[in-house]
């Protein structure tokens, strides 16, 4: 058997009253890509943070390279050859990409050449001299990965690295991970898309409720088995797994809306442009969304999705053109912990964020906290938010449960129209399936939805119509041409019409 590079046993970790890890085990062998699977709140990120030296475990033992260690900081983890690529970015916004790479390495001589060779070899291309704050999420993710690789780690740990990459880049990254592993290292990968993990992983570990419930060779377990291990039940949404045979909105009962309603546009953008200083973020965008349809807007991060989502949701006025919007708009922003929720507020206050100007919840200038608490309680029970009470601070909730709060709240606001911006990014199978079900249910009720997503599977699976946003311009994709290849080409700015 190949030597063990890292072994975590019986790891426990709690945050206040929340148990994140409850005796989790993980073994990384030399030369393997190891996939870590689990539902949201299963403890994947916490386990990786323990391995990366970000968090000290409350109990359990860790061995790296055969010796028992207590990693008390990322620096100590690096010293033992463990490099962690974070789910949340840890780059300095004011420094250039190259300077950030230097931070990760400590010395600068020959760094540019080395970085360029690495980019060539890994096909992860980034503008080295651009400042991080000028770059999109995709570039930032690539820089994080390059930063870890430059450190030449024995164990490379990646937390959800593919969420913002294009299909080609994802393929390239996987090939790279296999090469890294073949080179006598270990790679640990968390990705919420099962099929992605299975494509690249040699072995998998499944966490549920902070415990390791399954571990073994990837090929020895079929998808059903893994999903059951992850969610503890047979609930599985083919869409959220990223499986090819996708059937969604159209198959939901009652999803068909009468033709008359279907032809009535609820949202109309005409010649919309958004300028940021002298840069055109959006230009000449025409778009109509009708009741009872999902319009999917695909695109690589940083091509104007952000601006389009803000304009569609009425959060930003276009600098050119006309945006004709209805009254009842819900908006699921992509950055749930920063823009979707106030971390230090409890559930009730976060629901109040959307509802506090509603006449039902106020008396004169005073808020009716009792009524707001009831509204929060309804969202909590109807959308199955795992929180002890509506007085729980949302920062104590897992990502999936935070998203349930946002989805529940914004669906309540979306009496006419909902804008969903990467609504399942970073969510696990069950949570993503839940979001997709809710979108399908909402559209069946006659609400129009604009789904802005970098996830092609999601776009193709849910949308009635598909548009591609590239370089700030919106291109509609005719029904007959809705293939991954065609849309992928449009996303990458290939020949438009």
């Amino acid at each position, binding site marked *: 058997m190949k030597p063990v590079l890292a072994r975590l046993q019986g790891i426990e970790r709690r945050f206040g009253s*929340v148990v*994140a890890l409850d005796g989790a085990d993980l073994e990384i062998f030399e030369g393997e890509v190891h996939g870590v699977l689990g539902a949201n709140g299963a403890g994947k*990120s916490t386990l990786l943070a323990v391995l990366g030296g970000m968090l000290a475990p409350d109990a359990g033992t860790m061995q790296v390279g055969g010796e028992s260690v207590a990693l008390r900081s990322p620096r100590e983890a690096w010293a033992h050859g463990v490099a962690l690529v974070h789910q949340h970015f840890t780059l300095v916004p004011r420094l250039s990409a190259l300077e950030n790479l230097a931070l990760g390495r400590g010395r600068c001589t020959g760094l540019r050449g080395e970085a360029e060779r690495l980019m060539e070899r890994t096909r992860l291309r980034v503008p080295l001299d651009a400042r991080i704050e000028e770059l999109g999420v995709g570039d930032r993710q690539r820089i994080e990965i390059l930063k870890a690789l430059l450190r030449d780690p024995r164990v490379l740990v990646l937390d959800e690295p593919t969420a913002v990459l294009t299909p080609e880049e994802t393929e390239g990254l996987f090939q790279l991970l296999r090469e890294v592993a073949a080179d006598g290292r270990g790679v640990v990968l968390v990705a919420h898309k099962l099929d992605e993990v299975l494509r690249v992983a040699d072995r998998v570990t499944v966490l549920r409720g902070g415990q390791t419930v399954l571990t073994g060779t990837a090929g020895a377990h079929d998808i059903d088995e893994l999903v059951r291990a992850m969610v503890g039940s047979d609930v599985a949404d083919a869409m959220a797994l990223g499986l090819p045979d996708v059937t969604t909105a159209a198959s939901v009962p009652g999803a068909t809306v009468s033709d008359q309603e279907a032809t009535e546009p609820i949202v109309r953008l005409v010649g919309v442009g958004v300028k940021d200083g002298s840069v055109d973020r959006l230009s000449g965008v025409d778009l109509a969304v009708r009741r009872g349809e999902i319009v999917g807007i695909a695109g690589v991060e940083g091509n104007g999705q952000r601006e389009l989502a803000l304009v569609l949701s009425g*959060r930003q006025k276009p600098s050119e053109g006309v945006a004709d919007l209805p009254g009842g708009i819900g908006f699921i922003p992509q950055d749930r912990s920063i*823009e979707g929720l*106030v*971390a230090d507020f409890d559930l009730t206050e976060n629901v109040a964020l959307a509802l506090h100007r509603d006449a039902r919840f106020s008396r004169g200038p005073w*808020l009716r906290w009792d009524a707001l608490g009831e509204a929060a309680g309804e969202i909590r029970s109807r959308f199955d938010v795992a929180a002890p009470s509506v*007085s729980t601070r949302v*920062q104590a909730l897992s990502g999936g449960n935070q998203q349930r709060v946002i989805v529940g709240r914004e669906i309540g606001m979306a009496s006419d129209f909902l804008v969903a911006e990467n609504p399942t990014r970073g969510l696990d199978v069950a949570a993503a399936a839940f979001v997709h079900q809710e979108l399908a249910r909402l559209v069946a009720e006659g609400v129009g939805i604009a789904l802005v997503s970098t996830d092609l599977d999601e776009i193709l699976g849910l949308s009635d119509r598909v548009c591609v946003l590239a370089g700030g311009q919106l291109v509609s994709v005719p029904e007959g041409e809705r293939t991954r290849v065609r849309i992928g080409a449009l996303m990458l700015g290939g020949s438009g019409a």
Partner: protein
Amino acid sequence: MVQVRDGPRVRARESILIAIGAVVVTALAGAALLLAGGYDPLAAAGAMLRGAFGSWGAFTSITLVRSVPLILAGLAVALAFQAGVWNIGAEGQLYAGAIAAVWVGLVGGALPGVVLVPLVLLAALGAGCLWAVVPTVMRVRLGVGEVITTILMNFVGIYLAAYMVHGPLQEARGVFPQTDAIAEAARLPKLLPGSRLHLGFAIAVVLAVTLAMVLSRSRVGFQIRAVGASEAAARVSGQIDTRRVLVGTFLLSGAIAGLAGGVEVSGLTYALYENLSPGWGYTAIAVALLAGLNPLGVLVTGVLFGALQAGAGAMQRDAGIPAAWVGVVEALVILAVLGLDRVRRLRGEGA
């Protein structure tokens, strides 16, 4: 299922625990410093307590009177900090309020008290508000951090007051750098016979209760807290005009700090002079932070710091410890609160 909303109660409990912890840390660190300086900490504490609470007269005429500007300026700071506006400019706003109040009190002598007193207080509110305009505009229009701008405006305010008492508003005799006393009709009535405690204390209490209600129960108070807790989330909610909330809170904070200056001159000193404030606008930051930015907490911490200043004199007299030592205590309190709050946040962060 009954929904009990005890989130705010949990937060209040955390704030109180932090405050108690900060007081303990400060007491220990302060005692250590006194020992290092060759003083007796117990004697110092005894002298301080006697000076601040030794008699009903000392408590009302010294401690509570000292606490009035601290409570008002503390409320100004707490309100701003709740909105994420780091107004360090209460000192300058307080001086602006004091200048305006004295001016109205000097020129309006012919008016009856029921008219003049409100005018004096309104002038103080307006001047404090005006003093916050430049930092506010620079923050929301140009994105210039208000910490720097408000501190700089403090110097302008302090030296403007100095100029006034040497120049345009100097007393008629022209001897001392101070103004004449304001008209009788411009003075706040006393609350207790034979005590120096004036109506300003009641104003501070009413304002604290009002602000507490507004912040916890009103729509605009919720918006202020939301902007302070996460400006991005507040903006993206689509329900909050964050710029309006920032501007409104910043200006209101300046106005309340101005009121602190106006109440001081019309309630106690009846005149403006150099160094009217021994740094109340800065002490107010410690008052607000120790109170966990809770207006009702500010009432308690304001009196506590009032007692500290009242006791400082007695401490100097009886135990030979320089009164300036109180400034060290204030700094220790701020450090302890910030440190303990950070610990709470680190421990509260989840997966």
